[in-house]
């Protein structure tokens, strides 16, 4: 931070002292170019136009399609308005609710493990032992990878006979490595996606918690020490409350991302066995691009969007409350 300001000083310093023979301040100078207002709009316009074209226009199209029985692979069929039938159909579809439960299971457990492990790790790293920044960087690597590639290579590690994961489990527990299948087994598969997600995203929670821990001024701990607060007490009444906004932010981001999760799960289990790990994103892909129920899947897309949007809004409000305390 300091370093950057210093660089900035060097870069601009010659201008500041008015090395040019003191010119008077001329607001009119700006009119030589464009007005600030003109520049503001000129600068913002490309972003807005792009987002309107690639996000908002498609969104409106999706809304329109969601009230029809349109099938994208059969363009010749007459498109019929079906009113809110798609929405009623989705909200009363038992399969879809079980998909929602799958997603909830995935989101809940992966975030729980990530928070526990991530927060714990952050506390440890914050001890600033020798080499902590090197090991932190190592720990961070999984979260930068492509979720699709991660899902793909974990199928290799989960192979019942030759896979490293099964071998490691068998090595430490004595269970034969080919006696269980992380991906094919009905009981294990829902936990497999949780496991891989936790592997990948614990560093994310750790990094944000670490920022929270480092934001706590030393003076507060010193005050707690003066008050003879126990370590435990200090943790509950100083550390945890002060890290809470950061932790909640991490949970918010993870919850949104995991609710939308598609790539990792698609390549790891592809929703299987059966539909046991079929998160809503995979349901949506199957409906839209395999069964080509475009109208129906548009309605589902809108419902998902509203759910994420609504939840995020409520959550951000809660976050602001915690911050103000």
């Amino acid at each position, binding site marked *: 931070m300091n370093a950057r300001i210093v660089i900035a000083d060097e870069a601009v310093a010659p201008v500041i002292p008015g090395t040019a023979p003191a010119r008077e301040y001329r607001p009119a100078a700006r009119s030589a170019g464009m007005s600030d207002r003109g520049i503001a709009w000129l600068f913002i316009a490309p972003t807005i136009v792009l987002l309107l074209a690639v996000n908002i226009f*498609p969104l409106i199209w999706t809304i329109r399609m969601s009230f029809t029985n349109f099938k994208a692979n059969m363009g010749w069929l007459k498109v019929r308005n079906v009113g809110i039938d798609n929405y009623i159909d989705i909200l009363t579809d038992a399969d879809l609710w079980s998909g929602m439960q799958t997603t909830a299971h995935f989101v809940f457990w992966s975030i729980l493990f990530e928070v526990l492990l991530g927060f714990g790790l952050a506390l440890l790293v914050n001890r600033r032992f020798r080499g902590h920044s090197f090991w932190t960087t190592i720990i961070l690597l999984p979260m930068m990878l492509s979720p699709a590639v991660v899902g793909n290579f974990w199928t290799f590690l989960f192979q019942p006979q030759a896979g490293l994961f099964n071998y490691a489990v068998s090595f430490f527990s004595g269970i034969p490595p080919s006696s269980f299948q992380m991906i094919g087994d009905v009981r294990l598969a829902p936990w497999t996606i949780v496991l891989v997600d936790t592997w990948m995203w614990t560093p994310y929670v750790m990094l944000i918690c670490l920022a929270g821990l480092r934001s706590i001024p030393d003076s507060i701990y010193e005050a707690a020490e003066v008050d003879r607060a126990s370590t435990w007490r200090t943790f509950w009444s100083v550390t945890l409350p002060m890290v809470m906004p950061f932790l909640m932010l991490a949970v918010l981001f993870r919850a949104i991302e995991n609710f939308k999760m598609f790539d990792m799960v698609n390549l790891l289990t592809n929703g299987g066995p059966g539909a046991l790990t079929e998160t809503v994103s995979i349901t949506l892909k199957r409906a839209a*691009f395999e069964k080509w129920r475009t109208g129906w899947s548009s309605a589902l897309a809108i419902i998902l969007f509203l759910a994420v949007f609504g939840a995020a809004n409520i959550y951000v409000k809660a976050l602001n409350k915690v911050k103000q305390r």
Partner: protein
Amino acid sequence: MSNTMTAHSVVEASAWTKWIAGTLVVVYALVMITPLLWIFLTSFKTSQDAIAYPPKVFSELSLEGYCNLFTIRSHQTQEFMAALPPPDGYCARIAREQNMVIAGPSKTPGRLMNSLVIGFGSTFLAVFIGTLAAYALSRFKVPLKDDLMFFILSTRFMPPIAVAIPIYLMFRQAGLLDSYLGMILLYTSVNVSLAVWLLKGFIDEIPREYEEAALVDGYTRLQAFVKTVLPQATTGIAATAVFCLIFSWNEYAFAVLLTSGNAQTMPPFIPFIIGEGGQDWPAVAAATTLFVIPILVFTVLLRKHLLRGITFGAVRK
């Protein structure tokens, strides 16, 4: 002296707790990095060693995976094989040992090229228009600024598959399916929201006084932007660019639904590198290794800005 000791015990961990914390963290890091190391090792194994039981940590070093990744091989009759001149080169020899000949280059270089073109193209565009928007949002009074920022962020709330449905139809209509232009536009629109949020944070931190001094000196707004703000924002722009590049490089959902050949990038391609009887694991591992190395390098370079990048600039150090 005793005072400093007390302060020390509160803020600075004792040698003993440091040692415990360090050990736990190192153990965690080693366990968690193993899957990745295993993939790297697998890329240098023969196809038999890759699926050997018990798993082989050290095996005969082989570049079979890399050879298979970049070539197409075909089986030939005994007579044909016998009549061939001796193999030229390492990969040809490996193929010959398996009673195959190299039939030509594989699709891999093309897919890598697609990833690079689409990655750099969308990054350049997103950072370019993102910098402009971020500057305007940072410095000028823009009506409904907060709503605008939230709108820019909210485009990220859509599940990619949900966006892909209308985009698929739009691209089909416009002939943009499986094209560079389509993918670059799409990735730019996803990246631009990240770019605006990150860059606004970086530009907010540049003191306004410099520009004001430049304006007093008779620079126009545009000149002030180019000559004082941009040079100071270089680090931020570079960090933002790397985040955009990583996103485009890693993206799978849009790529798998909207491309099939011409513009297919690496992530949807890697899982379909198949040999005889399923995925050719040494080749998949080789592809994964080549694909992941740039990301690892960038992660190390970026480590100071990672926190900002992954939280849309919401958390800064």
